[in-house]
């Protein structure tokens, strides 16, 4: 059977029947079917509900129930396609002490401090040069600059740890609570 005919055939079926047919015959190759259920056609992430037909079951028994079931399946698939991967990404960012962004944040703190030292060293040299003096100071080795770097790195770690707590008590806790209540 060609893909078009398969599509037409599946579109005539209710969502439940389409799932049953797929389960019975194994992977059908039908473009609109995935493990999340039948939704009418292939999934377009930029218009995921375009293939819903509000009048698909008009005149049939339990047309409201059947249409509602299609809507729920369509929403479930949209959630699985667009949002679930992001939830997994967020959960995957959490480490034992903070988040996976710590490495990048530490690198940025180092580069920011080093860049600022080089910048100011140049400014100081030019400023003294205008008075005919030679700049002999070495800001990079000063206690202030080194202390600033160490303090900045410590602050970066602390803020990453705070971020972890905020994620765990914020978005992630909301998801787990909702998942728990959905099943009850």
């Amino acid at each position, binding site marked *: 059977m060609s893909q078009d005919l398969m599509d037409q055939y599946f579109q005539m079926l209710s969502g439940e029947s389409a799932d049953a047919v797929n389960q019975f015959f194994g992977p059908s190759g039908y473009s609109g079917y995935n493990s999340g259920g039948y939704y009418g056609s292939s999934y377009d*992430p*930029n218009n995921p509900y375009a293939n819903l037909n509000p009048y698909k079951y008009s005149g049939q028994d339990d047309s*409201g129930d059947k249409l509602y079931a299609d809507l729920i399946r369509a929403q479930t698939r*949209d959630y699985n396609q667009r949002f679930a991967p992001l939830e997994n990404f967020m959960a995957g960012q959490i480490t034992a002490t903070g988040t996976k962004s710590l490495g990048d944040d530490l690198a940025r703190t180092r580069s920011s401090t080093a860049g600022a030292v080089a910048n100011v060293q140049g400014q100081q040299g030019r400023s003294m040069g205008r008075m005919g003096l030679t700049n002999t100071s070495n800001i990079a080795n000063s206690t202030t600059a080194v202390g600033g770097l160490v303090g900045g790195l410590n602050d970066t770690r602390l803020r990453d740890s705070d971020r972890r707590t905020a994620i765990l008590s914020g978005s992630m806790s*909301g998801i787990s609570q909702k998942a728990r209540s959905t099943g009850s």
Partner: protein
Amino acid sequence: MGGGGDGPEELESKSALAEQAANALQRYGQTFVPLENMYIQDTMNMFDPNASASEMAAAQNQTSSLYEQGLGDMQSAQFNMGLDPTSGRVKKESSALREAQARGMGLAGASAGIDYTDAAYQGLGNVINMGQGLQTNAMSGNIDRLQAGLDRSGAQAQSDFARSSSLQSIAGTGAGMAYGSYGLGGGG
């Protein structure tokens, strides 16, 4: 009508409500899903390690300007006091302030980078709330974040300048008034 089943026939209104829900969902898909996807993409782009470079540079520049004004005032004060630019006092004082400037700029840039990462996570949290059907909170934008960083830098600069004896000595003069006018003079 009816399919000959034994159960009660479905209310017509139930079917109408389902159709209404389907229409609403289609409209959501057509109009709002592309906008949601745009926001999701923007949020994920914020996790790029180099995405915060311009915010960090802006924070450094703004912090530098806070110190530049004070350094200029300090130099004027030193000249007016007749201090020799090669003297130990002048060198020590200007070096100390330059080091403080470097520290301030470095930390302001670093903080802007961390704020940006926080904003990325906040944006991701908003996206997740969207997926869960929860109301999302408005996140602070670039300008808000930059201003918060500058407020911190300003407070640090104020404390750094308070240690400059040359600047302390010009309090009450024209330059001192200018020094106070950009918020670095402190109240005490």
